[in-house]
């Protein structure tokens, strides 16, 4: 009897696993991808635009990658070992990996890539991301040892993005600054052509190390900036998969025949920055009044058409670090009034918030404006173009400012930079030594369960101090045609095409 049970259980497991492998994957074909913006540069070490990473994920191999559950999985590094209390990372590299130009991928190349990112002359945007790296040593042709100056738990997760992307040394030396238009990586697709603002074409790399992959012959990225037009292109079959759909169109997309919609939690947060060094937000009680005055559920329902989730801290629902037991973020006019009185402004006050001149952002601010008005707080909205907004943010030239953060796979990347007194994006100049301690501890702690406890404390302390008023976590939505198969939707929103095939029967 026992044997039978085991056998049945085994059969169930096997059968459950079968569909993924049995479906005949068609080789060949071209996938057309509708993007919200054009790629800005093809050099991952110089890129600062989120959109660039989409193409990179198919052209460049990374040391490691993340999977749908935020687990770190091998890519160019076959395995790794963390030693010396989290200070030393030893990567064993995959054998026989070639760049698109035919050169070999070796430990020497990894070291050269890190040197390139750390070279001040390149002014790489990656330099600050890998700041904890103290030394990179070639142990043997397929082993590289990276030493950090202090334990840094998010290190591997940083390497799942552009800092882990390995570029061809031969190509960089050949093209120099023109490498930005002549990229060479180890990814499943090689670069073919880029006509700015029209299309960027990749072709299958026949020397790709994963045998049998990719299935597709070609991937063509088309930037279509207007979201309605992009969605129309999707509905009329001009594109096969679409990046960035406006929340108002999600319902229509779900009802559309021949179209699949996947909606998962992203890594984003949206919110208000309150300048902690400028009146009235120097006053903690006044910041708390704003915290209790806003109704995040209304923001989600109205500005985001019900997609995504309300935000009460830097960690989105996709992250293990989110503290789901925390509830002290609901709108509470009585508490808000009391906080105003505590802060010495029982009848309210007036301030100006700066924001980006985009529809969703404007609506979000108008909702907050109306909610604050009910408490006698008069919030004026000043809209700016994005570059100007960033300039004001970076120079601390604001009382309040509304902006978002695209998020990082490790919670550290969503919190440390904003909440630590020395954080690189702490433009509100918030400072609390207890917060610094918690964040530093969480960063150097390797055990996820212990980190979760620390991040729960971070969430609560951040809510108490209210340097930011978190409002919303965007949904990560992808829309694709039914004939697109094998697409795995991951919270970082990156479209990885190596396992995708087209079934156009």
């Amino acid at each position, binding site marked *: 009897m026992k044997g039978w049970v085991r056998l049945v259980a085994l059969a169930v497991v096997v059968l459950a696993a079968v569909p993924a492998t049995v479906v005949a994957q068609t080789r060949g074909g071209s996938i057309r991808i509708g993007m919200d913006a054009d790629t800005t540069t093809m050099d991952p070490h110089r890129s600062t635009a989120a959109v660039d990473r989409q193409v990179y994920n198919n052209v460049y191999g990374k040391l490691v990658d993340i999977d749908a559950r935020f687990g770190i999985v091998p890519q160019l590094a076959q395995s790794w070992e963390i030693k010396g209390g989290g200070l030393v990372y030893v990567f064993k590299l995959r054998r026989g990996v070639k760049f698109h130009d035919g050169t070999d991928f070796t430990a020497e190349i990894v070291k050269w890539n890190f040197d390139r990112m750390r070279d001040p002359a390149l002014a790489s945007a990656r330099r*600050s991301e890998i700041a904890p790296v103290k030394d990179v040593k070639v142990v043997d042709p397929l082993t590289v040892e990276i030493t950090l100056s202090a334990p840094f738990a998010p290190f591997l997760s940083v390497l799942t993005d552009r800092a882990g992307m390995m570029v061809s040394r031969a190509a960089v030396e050949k093209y120099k600054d023109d490498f930005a*238009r002549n990229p060479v990586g180890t990814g499943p697709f090689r670069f073919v052509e880029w006509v700015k603002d029209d299309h960027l074409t990749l072709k299958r790399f026949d020397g790709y190390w994963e045998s049998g992959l990719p299935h597709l012959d070609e991937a063509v990225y088309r930037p279509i900036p207007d979201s309605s037009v992009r969605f129309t292109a999707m509905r009329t079959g001009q594109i096969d998969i679409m990046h960035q759909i406006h929340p108002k169109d999600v319902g229509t997309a779900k009802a559309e025949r021949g179209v699949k919609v996947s909606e998962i939690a992203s890594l984003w947060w949206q919110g208000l920055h309150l300048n902690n060094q400028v009146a009235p937000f120097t006053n903690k009680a006044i910041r708390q009044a704003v915290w209790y005055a806003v109704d995040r559920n209304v923001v989600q329902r109205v500005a985001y058409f019900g997609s995504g989730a309300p935000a009460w801290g830097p960690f989105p629902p996709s992250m293990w670090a989110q503290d789901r037991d925390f509830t002290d973020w609901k709108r509470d006019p009585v508490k808000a009034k009391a906080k105003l009185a505590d802060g010495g402004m029982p009848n309210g006050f007036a301030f100006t918030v700066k924001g980006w001149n985009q529809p969703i952002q404007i609506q979000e601010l108008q909702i907050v404006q109306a909610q604050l008005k009910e408490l006698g707080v008069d919030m004026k909205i000043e809209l700016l173009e994005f570059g100007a907004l960033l300039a004001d943010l970076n120079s601390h030239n604001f009382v309040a400012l509304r902006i978002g953060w695209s998020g990082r796979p490790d919670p550290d990347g969503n919190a440390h930079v904003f909440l630590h007194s020395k954080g690189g994006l702490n433009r509100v100049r918030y400072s609390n030594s207890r917060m610094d301690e918690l964040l530093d501890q969480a960063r150097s702690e390797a055990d996820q369960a212990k980190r979760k406890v620390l991040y729960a404390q971070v969430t609560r302390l951040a809510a108490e101090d209210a340097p930011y008023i978190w409002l919303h976590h965007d949904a990560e939505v992808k829309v694709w045609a039914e004939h697109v198969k094998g697409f795995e939707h991951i919270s970082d929103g990156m479209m990885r095409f190596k396992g995708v095939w087209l079934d156009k029967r």
Partner: protein
Amino acid sequence: MIQFVARRLLATVPLLFFVSVVVFSFVHVLPGDPAILFLGEEATPETLAQFRARLGFDRPLSTQYLEWLGRAVRGDLGRSLRTNQPVTEAILQRLPVTLELLGAALAVSLAIAIPAGIVSAVKRNSGVDLASTVFALVGFSLPNFWLGLILIYVFALLLRWLPPSGFVPLPAVADNAKSLILPALTLGTALAALVTRQLRSGMLEVLRQDYVRTAQAKGLSQGVVVGKHALKNALIAVVTVVGLQIGGLLGNTIITESLFALPGVGRLMIDAVFSRDFFIVQGVVLFLAVGYVLSNLIVDVLYSYLDPRIRLG
């Protein structure tokens, strides 16, 4: 005539110099630091400083300007800060798209406006006249982008006759034309409306002239009177309007190209403005200024053809 053209061309030199000063200073007083946009929000002050130094942005504006000007007169407009592509190459690559779009928009608007203007003048106060008046009013009032969205909704989504976006370059003539119809309508409708009204009132005035009555008295057919005698004179006002509107049309290509995802000069410019790709912005604006000056020159030359009484010089 040649003397006139030469003199006008010479006169554009100080004008373009002035334009270059204005463009350069405007681009540099724009709020927003290119270093931050290029290196990301997390860049440290020292990395930002290194970036500025590498591109010479840390030197006095006058030095930067003179250096840029010195290279510009030799045809070198610098390189894109992002992709390192030479600015001239980037502009020339996109110019065919924008020129084709402008040409198509102009053709569309004249194809609508000339018949509509003539008929509504000749058949004054008729149903046709009323219809053309309504068209003119609506066409001129509709915001460009909205009209574009409506056209996309009707012709791409509902009827599936035309593609909603993208540009197919020549020599694929049929696909090229298909990809430009909606953008050309979007860009050309306002101009069509304006020209219709202009032509109508021009025609009405000319039709009242003595020489028209004489022509009619001579027994010439209505077609010859209207088409040959009246239209040519009424067209002078049209040419003026079209010439003046070229600048506006150029400006509107930014919206039209972005909406329909066409890789033209307008889109190059707007993207460069948002990312503070200074050399591209400066290059494109200078280029457009030259284009505008030249198109005005062509208008002036056209005058003398349409009305020999107008003497150039």
